[in-house]
């Protein structure tokens, strides 16, 4: 009962990790990070149900808030970067390189 949810969550998290590592488009990388956060949320809710405790679901609430804040700031960063470089390829993000 619990294990299948945890395994599914591990699979989703690994796919998210793979996406972050192999893609070059910053927005797709961002979406993969969201997917990893969601995999963690699934773990929280499955364990909350398993243990009969509501705390895990409150934590999911906080994770969602952080994800929303991250979306706002991250996308603003990408727009600012696109204005300077006409690209959001992560290989082009080297402004601070010496």
């Amino acid at each position: 009962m619990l294990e299948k949810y945890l395994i599914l969550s591990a699979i989703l998290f690994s796919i998210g990790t793979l996406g972050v590592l192999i893609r070059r488009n910053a927005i797709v990388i961002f979406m993969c990070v969201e997917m990893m956060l969601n995999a963690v949320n699934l773990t929280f809710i499955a364990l909350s149900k398993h243990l009969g405790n509501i705390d895990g679901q409150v934590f999911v609430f906080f994770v969602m808030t952080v994800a929303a804040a991250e979306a706002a700031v991250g996308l603003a960063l990408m727009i600012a970067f696109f204005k300077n470089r006409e690209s959001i390829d992560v290989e082009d993000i080297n402004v601070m390189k010496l």
Partner: protein
Amino acid sequence: METLFFTIVAAVAVLSSILVITCKNPINSALSLVMTFFCLATFYVMLDAPFMAAIQVIVYAGAIMVLIVFVIMLLNIRSETGKRTNHAVAVSSILAFFVLFEACYFLFRSTPAKEGMGPLTSNVIEKIGHTELIGKAMYSEFLLPFEITSLLLLVAIIGAVILSKKKI
């Protein structure tokens, strides 16, 4: 019955999440990600958490994904030309597989905690209501983190406004 339903929805979730990382066009990735979020909302309903499912659909599939799709449209990004080098793909596949292996290894090595120790059962949720239970927990036990969250949102608003100024 429940296992069959779980298997179908899990297969859809995994397939759509694979599509997220394989599609060349970012818009297709975004739509696949919405599909994944809907599958996760289905799981939340199956896990007796209807309020979290509603929040998942409204906040993730609604607000955050609309923001992402909006930015994709705004920036008019061309489809990606080629992935990173094969070398990087191989190394990252090994790394991702290692993450999966580690999670599964610790999962099967450990002994599971006893089921249903806490006060939250399907009966209680049905009688009191899931939203009310979450509200009670959030405004009593988690009051300080809840207040700190408002600070985080304030900082995010200021950050987004400053970053979108003409000259940074």
